[in-house]
């Protein structure tokens, strides 16, 4: 579904890209830096940042108001192009628009494609509860059910908390449905981005935020295409600063979020030898966020070992790479370890430690490939990841070696393109590639010298924290001497010499077997829920379908009419709509709460029951009419003849249909995942969100379905035989 979605967005972007150059009243595609009119894209609806007020055409919101004021101060004009968030981002990345302001979080991935302003808004995850709820803190959530929106940062954060606070979770694909679930009392709380939640409450949603503490804090920024529109970025930063200084900024934020301002609790520094170390949020294999939210990776392991051996403590400050460097350069944090390459530019602001890692660009090929030398790439297709340094490097040598290029937006897809043989090689940062290979990507790195090598080092602000730097250097030397350094490297990158079995808890075994065994409980519970739903749905839907079918062959026209109406409605309604209607609509109408299981069961029973009813009636109709005549001629009344003669023969005719319907019911349970019931399919979705191993996870899920269907079919045939048909 995600894939499809992206595919759709891509197509849309292409279409827009084709159309826009022909419209002459826009400034799209102008590369000149010095201009005073800009095209800014934004999300068409992301309250309280960007949205359209009722009946008004104009866009308002924190983003829009800030932009307006900044433009005023900095003396430029702009037109706003609202579109879907993904499109808005892509349009800027393609250079078709100048900038994007859309509640867009600053992330390392994005900083590869965009240049970003100073952060203009702090955000983070909060949880909200019903107005009358007594829940005050995470601790109170223990054993309760919490609503999450699939695939959001807030959901990921909640999952980290889950281990510690032991609450149950239920998933939704839509915020409103999630909020509703809390209001209805099905769940006790939901997790959401703070400003979004705050605004929803501000505008009347019957929830409250018991604790303003921000989880997973991050920032929103204004983005322009990398290397372009630096003037605009400058103007934005300058304007923003002025707004913050003259109090206008606070006014704007207050306008939308009320008096409860975004106060982020200041963290305290210890009085022991303690440092704040900035690092990237995620940069495998150097910084990896593990399942439990803890950071691991080469950098982290080195830092931890050194801090132990050198006797200091530290607080890790994961943030975007750019923020990490900046906060150290201006002294907010004491040091940075973040796969930071030593450059002359950086030497001006930082003091570097001795280098602890050499990195460079390499190319990798399929394990079975005959390609040994870069010259072998001639006329072959090479896979690159858009916006990466390795891609830039590959492009720079393309002419020389005469290969063709194919772009991907995501590493995993790029690797797989090589694995399946569509491309012969891909370019990547050496440690990243080695880490991926170690984690099961079926590629190999032919013998070569890494290009554009860079050296990674730990850094502190220039002229400051000499003691920390010294401690790091001494510690690093000791690590290398003791062999611990090589162990750490081998743990993440593997090596020919490396046969040690030390597997960090950081590494997830992402092979099919590994996925299965390390997530056994998840799969089992998903399968269990699927089976539970299937068995109950089959039993009840069959009984209901029989009743319907009998109504359908009734002598009474009125009863036949009821049959036709029920079949018409429930065979006609899409299962998904029915599920939503029952789970969300019904409690609204009746005031009676209903669990996802009950709602799912009812949905399936009504839908499958209608299909069953139709073929049951069909089965009865298919019995030779002479059978009924013979019985009637003997003086047996219609109903008794139906029961004694027609139904037994009809049932026999419909057995294949029943088995078929059982299988359909099993498969249809997957649709119930939409209302948040964590059955097998939903389990797969959650696992993919975490592991990114779509192919393997859905492969496993598909296999489990097939096995269950085989067992189900076999069981049905067995029962059929036992019943003596």
């Amino acid at each position, binding site marked *: 579904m995600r894939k499809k979605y992206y595919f759709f967005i891509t197509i849309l972007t292409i279409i827009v890209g084709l159309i826009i150059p022909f419209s002459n009243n826009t400034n799209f595609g102008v590369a000149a830096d010095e201009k005073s009119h800009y095209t800014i894209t934004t999300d068409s609806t992301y309250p309280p940042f960007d949205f359209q007020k009722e009946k008004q055409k104009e866009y308002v919101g924190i983003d829009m108001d800030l932009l307006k004021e900044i433009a005023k101060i900095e003396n430029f004009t702009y037109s706003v192009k609202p579109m879907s968030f993904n499109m808005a981002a892509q349009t800027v990345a393609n250079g078709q628009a100048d900038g994007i302001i859309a509640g867009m979080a600053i992330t390392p991935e994005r900083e590869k494609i965009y240049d970003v302003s100073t952060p203009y808004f702090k955000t983070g995850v909060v949880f909200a509860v019903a107005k009358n709820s007594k829940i005050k803190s995470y601790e109170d959530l223990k054993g309760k059910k919490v609503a999450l929106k699939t695939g959001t940062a807030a959901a990921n954060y909640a999952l980290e908390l889950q281990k510690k606070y032991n609450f149950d979770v239920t998933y939704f694909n839509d915020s409103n449905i999630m909020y509703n679930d809390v209001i209805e009392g099905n769940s006790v709380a939901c997790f959401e981005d703070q400003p979004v939640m705050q605004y929803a409450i501000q505008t009347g949603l019957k929830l409250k935020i018991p604790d303003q503490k921000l989880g997973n804090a991050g920032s929103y920024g204004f983005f322009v295409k990398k290397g372009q529109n630096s003037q605009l970025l400058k103007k934005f930063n300058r304007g923003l600063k002025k707004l913050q200084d003259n109090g206008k900024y606070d006014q704007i934020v207050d306008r939308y979020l009320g008096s409860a301002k975004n106060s982020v609790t200041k963290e305290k520094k210890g009085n022991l030898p303690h440092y704040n170390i900035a690092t990237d949020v995620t940069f495998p294999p150097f910084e990896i966020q593990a399942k439990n939210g803890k950071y691991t990776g080469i950098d982290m392991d080195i830092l931890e070992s050194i801090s132990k051996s050198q006797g200091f403590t530290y607080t890790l400050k994961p943030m975007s790479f750019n923020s990490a460097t900046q906060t150290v350069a201006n002294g907010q944090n004491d040091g940075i370890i973040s796969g930071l390459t030593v450059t002359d530019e950086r030497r001006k602001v930082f003091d570097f430690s001795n280098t602890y890692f050499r990195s460079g660009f390499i190319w990798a090929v399929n394990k079975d490939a005959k390609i040994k030398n870069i010259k072998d790439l001639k006329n072959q297709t090479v896979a690159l990841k858009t916006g990466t340094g390795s891609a830039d490097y590959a492009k720079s040598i393309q002419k020389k070696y005469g290969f063709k290029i194919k772009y991907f937006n995501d590493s995993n897809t790029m690797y797989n393109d090589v694995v399946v043989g569509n491309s012969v090689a891909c370019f990547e940062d050496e440690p990243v590639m080695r880490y991926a290979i170690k984690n099961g990507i079926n590629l190999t790195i032919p013998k070569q010298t890494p290009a554009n090598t860079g050296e990674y080092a730990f850094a502190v602000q220039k002229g400051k924290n000499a003691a920390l730097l010294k401690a790091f250097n001494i510690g690093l030397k000791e690590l290398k001497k003791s062999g611990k350094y090589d162990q750490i490297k081998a743990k993440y990158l593997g090596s020919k010499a490396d046969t040690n079995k030390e597997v960090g808890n950081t590494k997830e075994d992402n092979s099919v077997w590994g996925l299965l065994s390390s997530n056994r409980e998840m799969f089992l519970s998903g399968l269990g829920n699927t089976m539970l739903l299937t068995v109950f749905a089959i039993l009840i839907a069959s009984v209901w379908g029989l009743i319907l079918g009998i109504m359908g062959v009734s002598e009474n026209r009125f009863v036949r009419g009821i049959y036709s109406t029920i079949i018409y409605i429930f065979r006609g309604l899409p299962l998904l709509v029915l599920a939503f209607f029952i789970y969300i609509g019904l409690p609204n109408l009746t005031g009676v709460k209903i669990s996802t299981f009950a709602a799912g069961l009812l949905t399936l029973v009504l839908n499958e029951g209608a299909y069953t009813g139709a073929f049951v009636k069909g089965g009865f109709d298919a019995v030779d009419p002479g059978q009924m005549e*013979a019985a009637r001629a003997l*003086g047996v009344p219609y109903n008794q003849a139906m029961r004694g003669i027609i139904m037994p023969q009809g049932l026999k005719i419909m057995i294949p249909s029943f088995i078929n319907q059982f299988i359909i019911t099993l498969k249809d349970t997957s649709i119930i995942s939409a209302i948040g019931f964590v059955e097998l399919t939903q389990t797969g979705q959650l696992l993919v969100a975490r592991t990114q191993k779509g192919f393997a996870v859905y492969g496993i899920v598909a296999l489990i379905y097939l096995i269950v269907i085989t067992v189900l079919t076999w069981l049905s045939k067995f029962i059929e035989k036992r019943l003596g048909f």
Partner: protein
Amino acid sequence: MNDKVLKIHAENVYKSFGKNEVLKGVSLDVHENEVVVMIGPSGSGKSTFLRAINQLEKIDKGSIIVDNVDVSDPKTNINKVRQRIGMVFQNFNLFNNKNVIDNITYAPLTLKKMTPDEAVEKARRLLVTVGLADREKSPVSQLSGGQKQRLAIARALEMGPDVMLFDEPTSALDPEMVGDVLNVMRNLAKQGMTMIIVTHEMGFARQVADRVVFFDQGVILEDDSPEIIFNQPKNVRAKEFINKIINA
């Protein structure tokens, strides 16, 4: 002309299927112990009339009285009347989900007209008379056509009907099976059963029938003794029809 009890009295019966008028004023009397054979071209309405007698077909006009009960009256409990009219179909219509003896006992047991013992005992006697005593437990699918039709007759007799209706009982049978079925019917006639039989078995009709009626285009064109109908029919169309059959 007959001082015996009137069993069936049909008067001016009309029946249409949509625009197709199939019965156009049929009147017929059948007395106790009488065997009436109905002949006539295909589509002339013989089956429709036979089925109207036990109301498997509802009539549009006229009346049919069986044992002094007006079966065409909607207020009549038709199930009661049907219990006294046995019917044998061209295609047997045996209950496929029941074995031989259960086919026979199904109706009396379902209608609670007999105890299981009574029903089985009577069924066994009937199986002997139709020559199927050894097939009591067989599924009906394992019977030959002739056996099936004899079983169908036994099933119709179980409830002790006053009247038996036969609609081409031998038409679906291989020639060598026809004799056995006709013998069973002959014996029934001998025992004095009142019967209406649609058949083209002319030999059988000559031998057994008290009267032969000739049906054509929804009316009865001739109603006479077999000797007259077969040797010197008054009606031209009857003559043509009989010639065609005899010379076939």
